[in-house]
């Protein structure tokens, strides 16, 4: 089931990585290129439906995710970085497998077949297939200066009906420890960032985000590393406490460890300045 040479994947960026979290997208592409992986962006992909659509219209949210599946060439796995996108793509695939008549109707709508044997995986699973030892051997910089809180967000492994092909909890720690960083596990790593409430009810989100940030500082962390781009944004824009630590996208620290040099642009887009810490990593290299 692995792709030819295990190196080629279809890639679904999703709306966040396309816009607000471009730095995550760019660093992911950079890291993947260094690793010799080809992430081929899904041609003309659309939004997965996000958290808003399933409440308003089940058929529309199903259709949105299904269109993406219909665009994916069947012979290579489809990779997502955003946990929410992954969740919707996967659960839609499962639904279409179990409801062939719905699948046929959607295929007719798009005039394209939907292959229900398509593999939909997260980038962490790609790394798992790549192998930790290989990754470690490729590292050009040590992440030793980073004392990070692994912040997975809620969607990667929590929804009860997720298709569990892979146990994600612990992946961030394992990978970043292998690259030299030290995990800080006494912070509120499992507290929710607030998702869309950050737009609709910031007064509700700010105290929660501040709690997360304060707990990270109190536990001695000097950064948080997130898998989810929305978490990264919410943790940065909604924290109002004086003592804050930067919040990195996982892909950024990965690419940094692999020796990427075009990081200025990524870190320029952060709201909590990560440069002092990045300088330590680069200098220590």
């Amino acid at each position: 089931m692995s792709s030819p040479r295990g190196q080629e994947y279809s890639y679904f960026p999703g709306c966040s990585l396309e816009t607000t979290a471009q730095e995550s997208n760019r660093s992911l592409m950079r890291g993947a290129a260094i690793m010799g992986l080809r992430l081929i962006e899904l041609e003309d992909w659309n939004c997965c439906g996000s958290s808003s659509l399933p409440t308003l219209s089940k058929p529309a949210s199903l259709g949105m995710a299904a269109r993406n599946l219909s665009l994916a060439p069947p012979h290579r796995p489809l990779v997502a970085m955003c946990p929410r996108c992954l969740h919707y793509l996967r659960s839609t695939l499962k639904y279409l497998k179990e409801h062939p008549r719905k699948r046929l109707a959607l295929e007719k709508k798009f005039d394209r077949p939907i292959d229900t044997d398509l593999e939909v995986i997260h980038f962490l699973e790609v790394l798992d297939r790549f192998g930790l030892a290989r990754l470690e051997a490729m590292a050009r910089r040590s992440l030793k200066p980073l004392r990070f809180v692994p912040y997975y967000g809620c969607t990667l492994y929590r929804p009860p009906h997720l298709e569990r092909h892979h146990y994600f909890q612990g992946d961030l720690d394992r990978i970043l420890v292998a690259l030299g960083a030290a995990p800080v596990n006494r912070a509120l790593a499992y507290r929710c960032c607030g998702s869309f409430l950050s737009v609709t009810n910031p007064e509700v989100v700010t105290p929660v985000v501040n709690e997360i940030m304060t707990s990270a500082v109190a536990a001695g962390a000097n950064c948080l590393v997130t898998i989810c781009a929305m978490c990264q944004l919410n943790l940065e824009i909604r924290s109002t406490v004086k003592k804050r630590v930067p919040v990195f996208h996982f892909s950024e620290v990965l690419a940094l460890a692999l020796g990427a040099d075009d990081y200025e642009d990524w870190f320029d887009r952060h709201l909590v300045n990560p440069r002092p810490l990045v300088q330590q990593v680069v200098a220590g290299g």
Partner: protein
Amino acid sequence: MVGKGDLRADHKAGPPVIEASRGDRGFLEEVVRRSGVQVRRCFQCRTCSGGCPFVQAMDYPPNVLLRLLLYGRRRQVLSCGTIWLCVSCNTCSSQCPMALDLSAVMETLRIMALKARAPIGRPNILEFHEEVARSLERYGRTHKLGIMLRYKLLTGSWFSDLDVGLKMFAKRKLELFPSRIKQVHEVARVFEGQLRRKKK
């Protein structure tokens, strides 16, 4: 939030009581059928409400909502704010000793509230979801700046959060122009007749 007709004050015992026999039994059945969650298994341990990061903003904590559901309080449940404030972080369901998928229940209740045209407990949150959906219908992707601006226009909250908006804009996190897909007509086909149209 509790109207007079909802809870009947028992003058002798003091606090208001719910008459279980007066509840809408079909309501519970419908929620169980639509969500696939065996809500009856809840034994009110309150773990869900203890873990919920946003419980302080809710009119009913999740365990109370389940209790009202069991008593068939259709109107009260469908018009509450809790179901809209839930972001499906699943902290509750991952901690529930009976493994109840509460976010599935919340989603079911939101859908039922819309269908029943119940008063919306947190109208601003529904406005936001509808703005996102309109962006998807128009471009096939979310255009965050457009969503924010229209959301602000609809909720009349122009100046709240201006500082954060400007910071994001300065960091080029809000694009002026939407990223749109080429085959928008395919998305239009998906949306056909699906969204509630706004009355002006």
